[in-house]
């Protein structure tokens, strides 16, 4: 991956999360403590502030640096969780960047997120978007299919009952709301797809 693409990806992901901060906060106020949007905004502003330095690094190091910025700056559980995802991706980044290699790296990063959050899919968390995406990626899905999967997977958290995270305090009352972490994971996938599709057209 060239450095221009890397920078575009980091900027697109950060700007998308920042632009949707209010929506994420509204989702989190329904079933969490209402800080997801604010926390993610603070974290991705820190990522954005360092983007020139970060995007000059090899992708594996850039991902680790972005992950570390999230860990240090977010201020809530989503910092270590998204930080672990990006640092895990950086750690497992394939020597040859193809779809199978990316699927392996993504799977390894998701395993690290599961361990960090002591969670599994089905508990109304970001994993309910990430895990289906990894499966689709491994099946050779294209960007359009990945977009559809992300959106559908985030929607599928609406009827779920939360088992992990603050929303689990609500039990049955968490049913009927989209999980904010699932939504932010879906947003990130769509932002990545925006950049890559534009490149294919260009």
């Amino acid at each position: 991956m060239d450095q221009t693409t890397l920078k575009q990806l980091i900027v697109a992901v950060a700007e998308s999360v920042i632009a949707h901060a209010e929506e994420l906060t509204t989702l989190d106020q329904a079933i969490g403590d209402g800080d997801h949007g604010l926390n993610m905004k603070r974290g991705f502003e820190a990522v954005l502030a360092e983007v020139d330095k970060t995007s000059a690094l090899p992708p594996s190091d850039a991902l680790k640096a972005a992950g570390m910025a999230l860990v240090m700056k977010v201020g809530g559980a989503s910092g270590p969780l998204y930080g672990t995802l990006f640092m895990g991706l950086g750690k497992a980044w394939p020597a040859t960047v193809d779809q199978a290699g990316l699927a392996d790296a993504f799977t390894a990063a998701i395993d690290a997120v599961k361990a960090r959050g002591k969670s599994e899919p089905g508990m109304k968390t970001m994993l309910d978007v990430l895990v289906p995406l990894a499966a689709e990626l491994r099946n050779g899905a294209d960007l359009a299919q990945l977009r559809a999967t992300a959106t559908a997977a985030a929607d599928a958290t609406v009827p779920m009952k939360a088992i992990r995270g603050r929303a689990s305090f609500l039990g049955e009352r968490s049913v009927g709301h989209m999980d904010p972490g699932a939504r932010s994971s879906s947003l990130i996938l769509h932002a990545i797809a925006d950049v890559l599709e534009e490149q294919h057209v260009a």
Partner: protein
Amino acid sequence: MYTPSPNFSWGKVGMGARGASRAAGACPMNTNVGIVIVSHSPDVAKGAADMVRQMVGDDVPLAWCGGAPGGGLGTSVEAIMAAIDRAWSEAGVAILVDLGGAETNSEMAIEMLPDERRDRVVICNAPVVEGAVMAGTEASAGSSLEHVRRTAEELRAA
């Protein structure tokens, strides 16, 4: 390996804890287990620390932190690492946390500690205020880290 930057600003959040843990610096306190209190709210963290200090005096290394990086409710990995350092004891450090993010960020902070310290820091699965008081009392008696943790966690059954 990450090290907190020397010019890291505590703002109004951490100074109380720093002052509190340094106030007793004249006497050797590093034989008792240290206590760290982590809350989303600096007011809660400081209040809990005040209660522990009143119970155990200066016999226990004690530090607190609260608030997100840059302010507002939340917790900061950097501030937690610094609090562990302030409350450091060769006998180890027991951390009390309030809600989910405080626990996750504390776990992250522990992982980022130097190798020789990482295995001597535990998070107590206990209510933050009561747990801190129980852990502090147990620590002031010179108990081991595991014993301090068990005492704090006995509150769960109550």
